[in-house]
């Protein structure tokens, strides 16, 4: 008579848990024993330092930027986009029809209007009066 012994299905989970425990603990235990009996630990200020690039860190990690910087970036876009369009406009100026000239003037007017508005709002003052 042939017995087919089917183990409890949870048995494998127990085996798995056992292996999962022994596998990491064994090297750690060996390392601890090695440290205990052979190799004395030699910690030090530099060995335990956070950074490992060879250069000493300077200052704080938490640096804050002024929120005013954000407005400056947006206003910079006015000049940036304007320059990108003005240069080809100036190069092709003599060959342009009247419609194109008026179009670029409208474009300039819109941007200048935005600049004047921002200026009047005080966005160009770096240290805004609180």
């Amino acid at each position: 008579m042939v017995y087919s012994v089917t183990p409890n299905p949870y048995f494998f989970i127990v085996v798995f848990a056992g292996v999962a425990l022994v596998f990491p603990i064994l090297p750690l235990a060996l390392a601890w024993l090695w440290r205990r009996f052979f190799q004395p630990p030699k910690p030090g200020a530099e060995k335990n330092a956070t950074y490992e690039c060879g250069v000493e860190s300077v200052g704080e990690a938490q640096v804050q930027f002024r929120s005013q910087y954000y407005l400056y970036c947006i206003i910079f876009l006015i000049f940036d986009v304007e320059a990108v369009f003005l240069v080809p406009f100036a190069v092709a100026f003599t060959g342009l029809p009247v419609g194109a000239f008026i179009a670029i003037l409208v474009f300039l007017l819109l941007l200048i209007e935005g600049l004047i508005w921002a200026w009047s709002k005080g966005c160009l003052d770096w240290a805004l009066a609180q």
Partner: protein
Amino acid sequence: MTEQIDEGLRNELQRQGIWVTSMQDLYNWGRRNSIWPLQFGLACCAIEMIATAASRYDIARFGGEVFRPSPRQADLMIVAGTVTKKMAPQIVRLYNQMPDPKYVISMGACAISGGPFKQGYNVLKGIDRYIPVDVYIPGCPPRPEALLHAFMELQRKIDGQKLTGITKAEHLDPGQPSEFPVPAFGEHDLEPVANPDVFHPPKMERQS
């Protein structure tokens, strides 16, 4: 543990399919075949070091192909190239951050003595002024074969390191420092100019 096993007995056992070794031999065998160098190049010697790591010379044959970007994972520092006085503190700091046991190969004339740039105001006259060096390789730059030879010399050294006893390896000695003082920029030169605990230049003696 460190007693040598009788060679004849070992051979006899080996013939029967039993492999006998000591803990020290096993430990050193593992260490010497998995030396992880610090990925760290300074000058033209670094190109030779890269060539050594690449397929033609293939330092992986000796177990040294895992160049680590962090000193915390490295066993070996290959000082490959001219060490400027600006770079010297960083090198010593990186060496300090490497875990024990750690080894240094001083690669090329520059790392040994300053080499062709020895007279330069900004060139350190040898990295052995600040950190202990295990193997020196002459050459300008040394060929990859020379670096491989140095690597094998280092393996030979590791193989001979004892775990216990009076002659045990230096890094196992609790009194042996693991960190060395980092030189600082002085008014004219690095201060101190050399670490007297590490730097033992050969004395010149004139024949009268």
